[in-house]
């Protein structure tokens, strides 16, 4: 059986890849995808700790992952809708050009 550390490492790597994408991509949709990726990395942690934890019969990690997936789905729907609205307003999805909230 694979040790827990590897799962955590994989999760950390995916999280960092998602973070790097979210930080460097200019397309709002891709930034959103990066965030989805970070959520997924967190889910791996949840499942891994469920499997390696002391009381796996309670299904806590699995439940958490399921709820997290549903929240991520809702987030994707609303996020993409917001991107559509922003695009309609600004005619771009390039985040560098969307800085109305500039202080």
């Amino acid at each position, binding site marked *: 059986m694979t040790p827990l550390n590897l799962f955590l490492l994989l999760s950390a790597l995916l999280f960092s890849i998602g973070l790097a994408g979210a930080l460097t991509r200019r397309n709002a949709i891709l930034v959103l995808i990066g965030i989805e990726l970070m959520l997924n990395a967190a889910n791996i942690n949840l499942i891994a700790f469920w499997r390696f934890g002391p009381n796996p019969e309670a299904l806590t990690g699995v439940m958490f992952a399921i709820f997290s997936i549903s929240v991520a789905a809702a987030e994707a729907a609303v996020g993409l809708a917001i991107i559509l609205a922003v695009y309609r307003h600004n005619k771009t999805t390039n985040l560098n050009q969307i800085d*109305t909230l500039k202080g």
Partner: protein
Amino acid sequence: MSWIVHNLWLVAALPFAAGGVISVMKQRQRTLAAGLAVGSMALSFVLALMAFVQVLTSHGEATRQFSNFAWFQFGAEWVRLGWLLDPLTAVMLVMVTFVGLLIFIYSIGYMAEDENFKRFFCFLALFAGAMLGVLIANNLLLLFMCWEIVGLTSYLLIGFWYEKPSAAAAAKKAFIVTRIGDLGLFLGMAWLYAQTGTLLFYDAGRGCLEANALTTLAMHTTVFGLTLSSAIGILIFCGSAGKSGQVPLHVWLPDAMEGPTPVSALIHAATMVAAGVFLLARVYPLLSAGVTHGMTTTVALQVVTWVGAITALFGALVAVAQWDIKRILAYSTMSQLGYMMIGLGTGGVSVGMFHLITHAFFKALLFLGAGSVIHGCHGEQDIRFMGGLRKAMPVTFAAYSCGMLALCGVPLFSGFWSKDEILHSAFVWNLSRGPFYIGAIGALLTAFYMTRQMIYVYAGTTRLAAESTHGEHGHSGAHESPKVMTVPLLILAVPAVVLGFFGTPVWPWFQSFLEGDTANVSFGALGGAFPLMIVSSLIVFVGLGLGWLLYGRKLIVDVGALDRIESAQPGLFHLLSGAFYINELYAATVVRFTLVAASVSAWLDRWIFGGVVRAISTIFVLFAKVDSFADTHVVNRGFDAGCGSVSYGGSFLSKLQAGKVQRYLKFVGVALFVAVALLFWGGKA
């Protein structure tokens, strides 16, 4: 346990289901909608009768039966709900389903021309379902949920004609004011749950209204030296005060008369407001917990009694000076609810409930009569424009008179017995006779204002044509209402007269029934109550006489004529007709307070918080000054002084606000880095 106990939920579910089905029907399916609503209500009535018979035929412990079930799991806790059948529930079920059925039938006639007929029946059915849910609930949470649905549907019904701004405003007012009371109820419920760990009323010894829990609650004291049970009871009383229009929260009740005339008004008067009293009756063990521990009464009961007394007097006083036929009845309802509270506080469940039942019937009769009158007068509600209806509407007049006499408490009518019992228990209350005297004055005023109203509406000649817009269409006078409206009136007139005989001192069947005993006929009991009965009869007749003296001796013929009291005591009359200016008082206090608080906040915002911000920026500017000084004169003399000071003082913070989401995200990432690093360093060390 019998079938009916297990299936008691059907009583509430049937109207709910009817409401649900009606809501998806088409606007034009009027007959079907009305048929469904009436049918479901009739079935509920039959079921309620079955429940009543079930209770009637059982004795002792068996009179209280319940059926609990688990609803859902909440962490490790199971939330359990259930329904309860005891004499209190049974009586209220029969009353609500019977009156409700009559209202349903009546509104077929009354709402016949309304285009939103279907919507009205949908709301009515939902209302009835929720109300019945309140009655059968064996769990404060379930009761609270139904309670809130009752609040919602009453909001919908009051604002049924939402095109009318006054109706919309009244609906909003009713909703908000009752919500204030419900907040107390909710807090009480939460507190109760925190203390007892259950919200089931009866659960074979583990319920919150059973001896175990009550003893614990009565033992502990909390703020102001109140026992826990009293504190929770007072919070719950807040809810019932809101729903029953007790004094500080009564303002919505008169305005609620904006609803489709008598029908929803009647719901509020006879049915919904009774829910408040019913709630108190239901949690009466909680309110009275501790009585057995050496004290004669509890703080909670005293609060209930005094609030009731004040409301009783207040309502009666204000009713004296109203012109709107429905408002008079609304204030009268308020006053009568006050009586019920007095009864509950001083005499216990049976006293208050008896008046509730009799009042429900005769007030329903009065409201339906008023509706019939308004219908007959083509929508006119001002009693100054009525008059002489005795000849035009003989059936309505006869029925209305029965109701009026019952309300006044004329001997042998139902109201007499129940009101007399309240006065009696208030008289023997060992703390104070205050409530008794207030109640007696209220009874006098009740007789007075009802006489005034009767004379205005029915005596003399008609004053309708003077203002009526229908004059040229040939039916200037009033006319009798259709059968579908008068028949319920006549049906209701019967209990308004005879119902009192079930609770006379000689044969207190009702009281014993509620307590699960069998009643015995004993003329001995009459002896104790007899003097007081004489006194209260005298009071009533004095009130009637006074009314006749002022209004009946010389009939009003002119629409614009001043009221007799108004001409004698204009200041007092205006104070009364303005309902003691409570609304204005609220506008002057609560609303004013909010405004003041807002301006204080604004001041705080501008000077304190703004000052801090300014101080910080000044500090930054100071730093910048120092820095720029160093830059210009020490480090790099060629550096532009202004550029340095601006970039340090002003734009540092603004740079953080780049408006670019990714930069914000970057900060989060850096923060995460720092947090994890710190956490692990901390963990390692």
